[in-house]
C-alpha cells in the first residue's frame, strides 16, 4: 500500500493544482472561492521550499522536555530510542510488542513533503521520511469492530524532565478515527531529510497527519490501540473548549484564544508576513470527503 500518495508540491504540479482548486471551490459555491483559490496558488508556490534542518529541529513543541520552543532541542537527547518497541493491542488479530527493527523490515519508507500547521498559528514545510500507518495497522490485522486508533507517547520521567511538571496529564495520548488512520496521507515518520528523526522531533517513530493541527501528530509512539470507542486525547482532556478530537486545520473556525485564519511561516525572520491558512492545511482535495455532512464548527 506504499506510494498511495505522491507529492503534489513539485514545480510542474503547482499551477494545475492551484487552478484546479480554484475551479473546484467556485463549483462548490464557497463565498470566498476566488480569494481562497488565488491564495491557494500563492501558498502552493511558497510551500515548495522545505524549511531548513535548523528550523525543523530547533523550534519544537514537545512538552515532555519543557514548554519552551528550544527546550526539546536542548533536552531531548536524554531520551533512549534504541531499543524501541511499539505495543499494538486492542481489536487486532496479532497483538503484541513489535520491535522497531521488526516493523521497519516490513515497511516501505518513502519521502513525503508535507505542510505542517501548528495550532499556535505557525507553519513549516517538512520533508518527512516514513511509511503509511495503514501498512503498520495491516501488519497487526485490524478487526472488523475497530473504529478508532489510540496512540500513546513514551512516559519516562527520568529521561523527560518536562514531565516533572503537570503541564498535561502524562503520558501524552492522541487518537484518530480508523478511516483517518488508514488514509494514504497519514504516515508514521522515521526520518527528516533522509536522516534519522532527531529526538526533539519525536524519534524514533511519530505520527504525521498533515491536515490536522500539529499536536495530533503524536511523537515517540510506544503504544497503538485499536478500539470501538473514541479514545481520549491529551489537549482535549486539558481544555475541551479549545481542542477538539478532530482538530482539522480550518481557517474558518477560530481557536477561542487566537484566530486560525492566517499563519506565520517559520524562517521568515523578524519581518515575516502572515499568510492565509488553507482549509485542511491545503489537503482539502484529499481529505474533505472524510468529513462529508459533519458540522465542522461543532466537530472542531
Amino acid at each position, binding site marked *: 500500500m506504499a506510494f498511495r500518495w505522491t507529492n503534489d508540491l513539485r514545480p510542474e504540479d503547482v499551477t494545475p493544482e492551484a487552478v484546479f482548486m480554484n475551479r473546484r471551490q467556485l463549483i462548490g459555491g464557497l463565498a470566498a472561492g476566488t480569494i481562497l483559490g488565488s491564495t491557494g496558488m500563492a501558498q502552493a508556490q511558497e510551500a515548495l521550499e522545505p524549511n531548513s534542518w535548523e*528550523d525543523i529541529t530547533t*523550534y519544537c513543541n514537545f512538552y515532555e522536555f519543557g*514548554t519552551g520552543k528550544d527546550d526539546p532541542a536542548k533536552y531531548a537527547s536524554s531520551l533512549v530510542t534504541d531499543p524501541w518497541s511499539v505495543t499494538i493491542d486492542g481489536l487486532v488479530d496479532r497483538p503484541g510488542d513489535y520491535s522497531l527493527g521488526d516493523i521497519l523490515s516490513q515497511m516501505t519508507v518513502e519521502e513525503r513533503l508535507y505542510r505542517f500547521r501548528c495550532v499556535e498559528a505557525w507553519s513549516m514545510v517538512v520533508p518527512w521520511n516514513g511509511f503509511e500507518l495503514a501498512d503498520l495497522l495491516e501488519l497487526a490485522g485490524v478487526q472488523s469492530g475497530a473504529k478508532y486508533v489510540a496512540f500513546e507517547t513514551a512516559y519516562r520521567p527520568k529521561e523527560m524532565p518536562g514531565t516533572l511538571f*503537570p503541564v498535561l496529564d502524562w503520558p501524552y495520548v492522541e487518537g484518530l478515527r480508523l478511516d483517518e488512520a488508514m488514509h494514504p496521507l497519514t504516515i508514521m515518520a522515521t526520518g527528516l531529510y533522509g536522516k534519522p528523526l532527531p529526538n526533539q522531533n519525536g524519534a524514533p517513530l511519530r505520527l504525521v497527519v498533515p491536515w490536522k493541527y500539529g499536536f495530533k501528530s503524536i511523537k515517540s509512539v510506544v503504544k497503538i490501540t485499536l478500539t470501538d470507542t473514541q479514545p481520549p486525547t491529551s*489537549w482535549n482532556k486539558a481544555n475541551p473548549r479549545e481542542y477538539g478530537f478532530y482538530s482539522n486545520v480550518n481557517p474558518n473556525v477560530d481557536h477561542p484564544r487566537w484566530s486560525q485564519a*492566517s499563519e506565520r511561516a517559520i524562517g521568515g525572520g523578524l519581518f515575516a508576513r502572515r499568510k492565509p491558512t488553507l482549509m485542511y492545511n491545503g489537503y482539502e482535495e484529499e481529505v474533505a470527503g472524510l468529513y462529508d455532512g459533519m458540522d465542522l464548527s461543532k466537530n472542531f
Partner: protein
Amino acid sequence: MTAWTCRKTSKSDAIRKELLFMVDQINATLRRIPTWLVYVLLLLPAPYFLYLGATGGLGVEPINALERKLGEVALQLIVFGLTVTPLKRWAGLNLQKFRRAIGIMAFAYAAMHLLVWLVLDVQILSQIFADLVKRPYITVGLAGFLLLVPLALTSNNVSVKKLGPKWRVLHRLTYVAAILGAAHYVMLAKGFQIEPLIYLGLILGLLALRRVPKSKSRRRAVA
C-alpha cells in the same frame, strides 16, 4: 511570650547592629547612583533583544520570542516596582529614588511589547480589532497597558505637585495594572504552566504585604 518579645541577648543585638550598618551602607551607595543611569541600564535589554532577533539569536521564530521577552521584562519591572515599598518598610532599604524610573521603564517595555504585537505579529488590522474584542487575554493585557498610560503621563514633578494627594490615589492603579498584566500571562499559557503563576503569585503577595497593619511591621522591624 514569643522569642522576639523576650530580652535580647547581646549576640542578637550585635547581629542587628551589623545588619543596620549594612543597610545604611547600601542606602549610601544607592544615593550616589544617578537616576539617569538607571534609565539607561533598564533600557539596554530592548536594543539587545532587537539585535538578537535580527541576527538569529532568538531562534528561527524571532517575532514571538521578541514579543515575549519584552512582555516578560515589563512584568519583571512591575514586580520590581512593587518591591520598593515593602523593602523600605521591612528591610529599611531605600529605593524610592528609582521608583519613577522603574515605573516609566515598565510602561516603555509594555508599549514595545504591544507595538511588536501590532506591527510584527498580527499585522492585519481587521484581525487586530477582532483579537482585541474576541480574545480575553488580549483584552485583559490591553486594559492593563491602558491603565499604565495616565501613570506614565503623570510620572513627573509638575504632575505630582499639581495633583497633590490625588496623585497617590491615581497611582494605586499600578496595583490593578499589575494584576491584569500577570493575568494576561496566565491566560495565554497552554496547559498548566508554572512561570506565569509565579508572576501572579509574586504580585498578589507584594500587594498583600501592603495590607499588613503598620503596628505589626514596626514590631517585627524592632525584633
